[in-house]
């Protein structure tokens, strides 16, 4: 069955799973959706106060709060969606044991419900841009591209992780260590200039890092009001293709054995 026909056939299940995630997420907090907006705002405020001082000697980053929030929004989405999607197969054992459903729907719906959070955190970005009187140019519309890239990349990584986590449960604990290290190797908080004195291999990793490309493009169009260099798009598309190819290959190979292991 083609991807599209699966989505049409199971649209009811998909909306159920996404709605369930969103409901269980917000049922516990009174502030509900507001929290999704407030959380990045508060984090951004704290980090801005601390780091804009530290980083001032690397020249002025104009509008550090927006610079920071751009990075945070993209990286947090990747971190949250892949971490949650990772356990999606392990935790849906009771559902998988009963009837045949395409199993990739489980990690994919997790990524989808995290996208709802991503949209909510966009509200935070708009607020900060308004408060800091950031210059808004038509290039802002191009922001959909980096958002699409990070969505595709996270989907690929989620497929891979959710399949592997069935055989190696402890990976779920290990993963938070990996994403923390990953964040330090991504210019989320710090300006790129900070790397000038860093060893070559660190620079190389940071520049090859797919998250760096997504965030750079996002900052170009949102903060600087210019279109991003083509090389960044090439890099992004390459990483998305790699992640989706490996993710779906591994998932496809592993999926028939899920039921025996969960």
């Amino acid at each position: 069955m083609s991807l599209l026909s699966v989505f049409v056939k199971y649209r009811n299940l998909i909306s159920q799973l996404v709605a369930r995630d969103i409901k269980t997420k917000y049922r516990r907090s009174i502030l509900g959706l507001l929290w999704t907006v407030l959380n990045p705002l508060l984090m951004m405020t704290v980090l801005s106060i601390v780091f804009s001082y530290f980083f001032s000697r690397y020249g002025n980053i104009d509008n550090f709060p927006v610079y920071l929030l751009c990075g945070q929004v993209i990286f947090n989405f990747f971190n949250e969606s892949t971490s949650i999607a990772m356990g999606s197969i392990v935790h849906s054992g009771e559902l998988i044991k009963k009837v045949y459903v395409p199993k990739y729907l489980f990690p994919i719906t997790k990524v989808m419900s995290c996208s709802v959070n991503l949209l909510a955190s966009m509200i935070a970005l708009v607020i900060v841009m308004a408060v800091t009187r950031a210059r808004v140019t038509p290039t802002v519309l191009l922001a959909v591209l980096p958002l699409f890239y990070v969505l595709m990349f996270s989907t690929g990584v989620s497929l891979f992780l959710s399949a592997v986590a069935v055989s190696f449960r402890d990976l779920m604990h290990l993963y938070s260590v990996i994403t923390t290290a990953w964040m330090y190797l991504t210019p989320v908080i710090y300006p790129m200039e900070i790397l000038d004195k860093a060893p070559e291999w660190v620079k190389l990793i940071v520049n090859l890092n797919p998250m760096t490309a997504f965030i750079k493009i996002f900052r170009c169009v949102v903060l600087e009001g210019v279109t991003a260099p083509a090389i960044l798009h090439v890099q992004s598309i390459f990483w998305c293709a790699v992640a989706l190819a490996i993710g779906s290959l591994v998932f496809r190979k592993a999926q028939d054995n899920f039921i025996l292991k969960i």
Partner: protein
Amino acid sequence: MKIENAIEVNDVSMCFNLSREKVDSIKEYIIKAIKHQLFYEEFWALNDVSFEVRKGDSVGLVGMNGSGKSTMLKIIAGVLKPTKGSVETAGTIAPMIELGAGFDHDLTARENIFLNGALIGYPREMLEDRFNNIISFAGLERFVDVPIKNFSSGMLARLGFSIATIVDADILIIDEILSVGDYQFQNKCKKRIREMMDRNTTVLFVSHSIEQVKEICKKAIWIDQGHIRMMGEAEEVCDAYEDPNEKVK
């Protein structure tokens, strides 16, 4: 696949790994690999099983515990993929295989009706239309908004049966669901199964109650340690299965 058949099972074999402990973490895997303790103990739960079920037929599977009945049903439902062989089915399948499977135990009965229904592939509008029918057939009016982790096993079975049979599927698969229901619910279920059979639904039925198998099924298949021992009219197969002289062997 022949047009008159609802299910065709061709030379199906199923192999499980019966190693003592499941290795499901990187740590264990490495330790076991170093100590050369990664055993794979093969166990063939089904061996070259083949049979056909005609549209509208009702077939009972009988056999001892662990003979492979549930495994066979899971393969037909598409939940398990057979190690060898293939299964073909025609039309929609309403499976009731394991008690409570297909439910999210933290959600309420109401939410589970929509989740479980979506899993089987029923459209939301239909579930909304027939919501009251589902609840009243299951007799759970007072428990609509109770999380189902607080349900008894009979209540779970009622809910599962009620959702799965709310529309006529082409193939109905029932694995010991009736055995946890009280006599009143069993009668209700039998009545509904017969009505569905009259409307040409194919039924696969597993139960340790031979009376029930004889009552509901026209045909029966006796599975013995993963092999088909006997296949034919329900009465005959059940009598042979129950024959005390056979059992001692």
